């Protein structure tokens, strides 16, 4: 592989790992906030326990989201200084706003939410989880504004060979960004909803002690998952109108339109290969659509089954199926992301800067070494964290440590 391919692989692995965790983070944060609102309003002990159990799973997942996010924040400057030099004055502003409005506040409030569990007024504590949730969506919003600019550059002008902002409003109102934001936000809720339903179904099937707890949780999961699936699909459908010609031709597998897209690019930018890897883009698009169809059908079916309490308690094949569905939204999210990002190749900034011209002047050896380092560390951490997530999910609400008052060790009580 040449240096650019290695750098792309490193970016893809980091972004892919990050995306898997933040998808669940975004969805679960919303669900935890809703459950905690219920707990705070009603003072119901059951809902308080639900907040702590789902909150614990949320935090296990969040920790991975944050460490992959830290690495993401530095990837552009590390490996793609050609991109930051050429377009950083435009899309960098969106990244700056993201770190300050979203990442900064989200981390600060989350620390306060976790460690201030019994120290804060319960309304202040509730406000914190909503603050964390709102800033998580703000984060997704500003990242997609930056990504939308790379997909469909708007609101810029060229000066001395580099881009600068001409119209910030046009950049933020970019349909390629806004539609994608709603699509991804919906996808996160699908991921969170199916996760909550699947974990609950596992406990119902095993007839663990917490029947009431998981019957209610399963309903929350499905009540969110069904409309979220429809919402995501709606914005996915609208998003097809914002696709680059070569991406949509690759999805359709239409040789004639592909040739036309290539010819148009050659006419504008000179000779070269301007087509994305057609097979991969098409496979990713089809995977996303197929998984969506399966999820929609099963979410609708589950919504009906959920209305009958004996079914919720005792229909084990359905429980088994819901648990088996947990990975599917992740598959759809990753496939959709591959479709979006591979489909715009060979461009880093569509029509303006090629990926091969966006790289930093770093050596093959440097990238090989860093790629090996990141891949090894992330592989170990991803396996460990999914094992811990599954373990904490199986052990149920009794084993939760979040929000419990720790016992003071006698050795230090002086």
């Amino acid at each position, binding site marked *: 592989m040449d240096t650019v391919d290695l750098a792309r692989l490193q970016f893809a692995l980091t972004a892919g790992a990050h995306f898997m965790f933040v998808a669940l983070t975004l969805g679960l944060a919303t669900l935890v906030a809703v459950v905690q609102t219920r707990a705070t309003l009603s003072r119901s002990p059951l809902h308080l326990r639900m907040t702590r159990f789902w909150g614990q799973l949320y935090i296990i997942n969040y920790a991975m989201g944050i460490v992959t996010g830290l690495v993401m924040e530095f990837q552009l400057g590390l490996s793609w200084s050609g991109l930051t*030099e050429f377009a950083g004055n435009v899309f960098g502003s969106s990244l700056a706003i993201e770190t*300050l409005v979203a990442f*900064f506040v989200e981390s600060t409030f989350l*620390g306060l939410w976790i460690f*201030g569990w019994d120290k804060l007024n319960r309304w202040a504590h509730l406000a914190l989880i909503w603050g964390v949730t709102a800033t998580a969506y703000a984060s997704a919003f500003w990242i997609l504004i930056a990504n939308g600019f790379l997909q469909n550059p708007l609101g810029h002008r060229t000066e001395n060979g580099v881009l600068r902002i001409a119209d910030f409003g046009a950049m933020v109102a970019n349909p390629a960004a806004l539609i994608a934001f709603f699509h991804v936000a919906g996808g996160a809720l699908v991921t969170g909803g199916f996760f909550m339903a699947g974990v609950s179904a596992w406990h119902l099937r095993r007839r663990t002690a917490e029947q009431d707890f998981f019957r209610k949780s399963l309903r929350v999961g499905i009540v969110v998952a069904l409309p979220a699936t429809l919402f995501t699909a709606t914005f996915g459908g609208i998003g097809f109108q914002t696709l680059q010609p070569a991406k949509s031709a690759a999805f359709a597998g239409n040789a004639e339109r592909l040739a036309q897209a290539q010819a148009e690019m050659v006419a504008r930018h000179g000779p070269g290969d301007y087509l994305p890897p057609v097979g991969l883009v098409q496979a990713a698009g089809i995977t996303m659509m197929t998984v969506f169809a399966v999820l929609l059908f099963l979410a609708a079916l589950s919504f009906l089954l959920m209305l009958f309490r004996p079914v919720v308690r005792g229909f084990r094949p359905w429980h088994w199926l819901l648990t088996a569905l947990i990975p599917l939204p992740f598959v759809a999210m990753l496939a959709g992301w591959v479709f979006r990002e591979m489909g715009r190749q060979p461009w880093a900034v569509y029509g303006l800067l090629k990926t091969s011209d966006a790289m930093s002047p*770093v050596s093959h050896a440097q990238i090989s070494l860093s790629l090996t380092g*990141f891949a090894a560390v992330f592989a170990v951490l991803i396996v460990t964290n999914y094992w811990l997530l599954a373990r904490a999910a199986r052990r149920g609400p009794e084993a939760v440590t979040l929000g419990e008052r720790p016992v003071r060790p006698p*050795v230090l009580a002086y």
Partner: protein
Amino acid sequence: MEILILAFFALGYLVLAGADIGVGMMLPYLGRSADERRVTIAAIAPFFLGNEVWLVATAGVLAGLFPELEGELLSGNYSLVVALLLAWVVRDMGLWLRGRVPGGRWQAFWDGATVLGSWGLALSWGSLLSDVLLGITGPVALVPALLVAALFATHGLAFAALRLRGRLRERAAVLSGGAGESRTYALTTAALAAIGVLAGLRLPLEPGTSGPLLVPVILVLIPFLVAAQGWVWWTFRHRVTGPSYL
């Protein structure tokens, strides 16, 4: 104004997160048993998320206001920045994972990750700063890097002495002597800030073109960000009385 904003976040990171790094480095010295280590970590636990994010903000400010410098600085020090990121990830995972499974070996392993990651962070920062400040690279850079690491460690000890009680506080105050932990902390804070400022003066701080748009936005945001952090400091202003969630 762009430079002041960058300095605000970069110095904020060095001073605030520097204490977390130092406590992580000195964890084997401060906490001799698993329980003691857990209480020692409680000294930084409520803060470390909100502290490390100052570096994320610094990166964001670089990306928005100094995009050219961002590329030069990060890709120009590629391997050091990668080492810094890996150490950061290992340190954070050590903190997050230590309490997830009961058992001495699991905790000892992740405490080891916290210590290793903290040393890695301190030494990467030391090497980066000595490269920027003195232009020294290669094995010789280890000397100034170790000095910077020692400064982080002292800063961490002073912070731990301010947060802990009893035997742990005594251990942490070993370097403070008669001066008192507040004064030691003020001193190490000044030293870290001075190194940060001097390194900044050596950088080609040429702002990009989005300042007129971004600077007012950031200036409006800063009071809210400081208030959010102030809420954390106020909530955890008392000394640690026992272990926390981690």
